[in-house]
């Protein structure tokens, strides 16, 4: 099998806030077409990592290369080739759905804007709401609209922060299938932070378990469950969250 192109390369990344490390000596790569899950309890450093990957937070040390380029020197080019959706960020509530997508399509210099918007609204079953005010959408509809925004520019790298957090199981399943389908068709790479273990299990090729800013376990879902001698990722998650600082062997022997 040929070696796939590296899309994200993080080396010894650290972020310190007032003497406390939110992320410490983090290194990982994401290959083209790979979906990487960042897992961890609240405060594990997932969001800080995502924010550094979006150039919203300056690292204290270490380097971030995306598409083989240094982020600080090629910020605009890199951000134009990636995109981001979070269940906790919204598009301006006083604009109509279609107006919001037009604005972001311009920002991302999308070609055939109207066609692309129509495709995405159809894909996420929002076409009937395109002339509605964004503020009037339900939280699930807003989450799907965020995903429309995030896919406008056919990103080569998509960062997702709890993408299905406010979706019902049916919509969450549809969204997972859409992301998987897009990833398979376009070779898009995805970094996904989630507390939803179904998301992680179904979507992610590889998982990084983070705790207090460092990676304490990584591999496929099956590998991680095997390491922790556990039947589910949720069980591993709880085990790690409740027994901070212990090695996998100590944890599993305790259970």
């Amino acid at each position, binding site marked *: 099998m040929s070696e796939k192109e590296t899309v994200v390369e993080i080396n010894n990344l650290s972020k310190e806030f007032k003497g406390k490390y939110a992320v410490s000596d983090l290194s990982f790569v994401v290959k083209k077409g790979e979906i990487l899950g960042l897992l961890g309890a609240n405060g594990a450093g997932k969001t800080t990592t995502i924010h550094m990957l979006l150039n*919203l937070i*300056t690292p204290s040390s270490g380097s971030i290369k995306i598409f083989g380029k240094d982020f600080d020197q090629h910020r605009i080019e890199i951000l*134009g080739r990636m995109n981001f959706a979070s269940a906790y*960020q*919204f*598009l301006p509530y006083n604009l109509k759905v279609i107006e919001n997508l037009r604005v972001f399509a311009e920002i*991302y210099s999308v070609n055939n804007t109207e066609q692309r918007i129509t495709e995405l609204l159809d894909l996420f079953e929002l076409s009937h709401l395109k002339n509605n005010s964004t503020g009037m959408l339900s939280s699930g509809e807003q989450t799907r609209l965020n995903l429309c925004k995030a896919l406008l520019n056919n990103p080569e790298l998509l960062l997702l922060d709890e993408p299905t957090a406010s979706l019902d199981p049916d919509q969450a399943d549809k969204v997972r299938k859409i992301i998987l389908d897009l990833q398979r068709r376009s070779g898009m790479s995805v970094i996904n932070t989630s507390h939803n273990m179904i998301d992680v299990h179904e979507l992610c090729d590889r998982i990084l378990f983070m705790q207090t800013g460092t990676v304490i376990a990584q591999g496929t879902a099956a590998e991680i469950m095997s390491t922790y001698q556990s039947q589910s990722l949720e069980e591993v998650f709880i085990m790690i969250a409740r027994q901070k600082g212990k090695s996998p062997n100590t944890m599993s022997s305790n259970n």
Partner: protein
Amino acid sequence: MNLRVVKALVLKYLYVCSRNSFRALDVFFWPVMDLLIWGFMSIYMMRVQTSVPKMVPMLISAIILWNVLYRAQQVVCVAFLDDVWSRNMLNIWAAPIRPSEYVGAGYVVGFMQAFVVVIVMGLLAGFFYSFNILELGLHLAILFANLIIMGWSLGLTVTGLFLRFGPPAEALAWAVPFIFQPISAVFYPVEILPPWMQTLAQLTPASHVFEGMRELISTGHMNTFHMYAAFGLNLFYMSIAAFLFKSFYEEARKRGFLAKYAA
């Protein structure tokens, strides 16, 4: 009525005020500004009595032109706050947008809004007071441009302060132009001010604009010194504002404020 509930809500308000110096400042700021503006205005009126025949056009022009500065500043700030309030910050700052493009868009909208305000207020002044703002001639464009630039500089600085200090600084969006109003000598000449305030006025671009405006209305021509001074000061302050904004932006990224403010 449950007094414990009232007490709890009063306590909540006091907690907010005690931890937010900008909010505490707000309590005293507007009364002090009113006192200064109306106090200096009264002194001016007492001195001139009926010896300034064009007082009415001066005041109307001053009100219209003051709004140019105010609009230009406010639009830049509110454009930013809109993104905060609608929780759209991360979508914007994680997009391929340069800070200069973000600010530039605010400048364009500020210019458009100020332009429309001058037209609407000019028409209303003509209708109600038979005053024609176009009598200021081509000088109107120079006065307008200088006030726009000063408004942009203030807007840029205040937006930088939002990035640095977060939500507590939001009150500045409305207050900052009025900090400069007394020394901008909008409704009265600089000579009315106490000497130390006159020095500050000389360093404020808007005071040169309003001095020039009064001269233009009373004599029909304007000393170019005022416009050169306003333009030079504006260039200087715009550079300072750009430097401050860049510093605050970098600081916000370094300390994680940009992401925190957006959450």
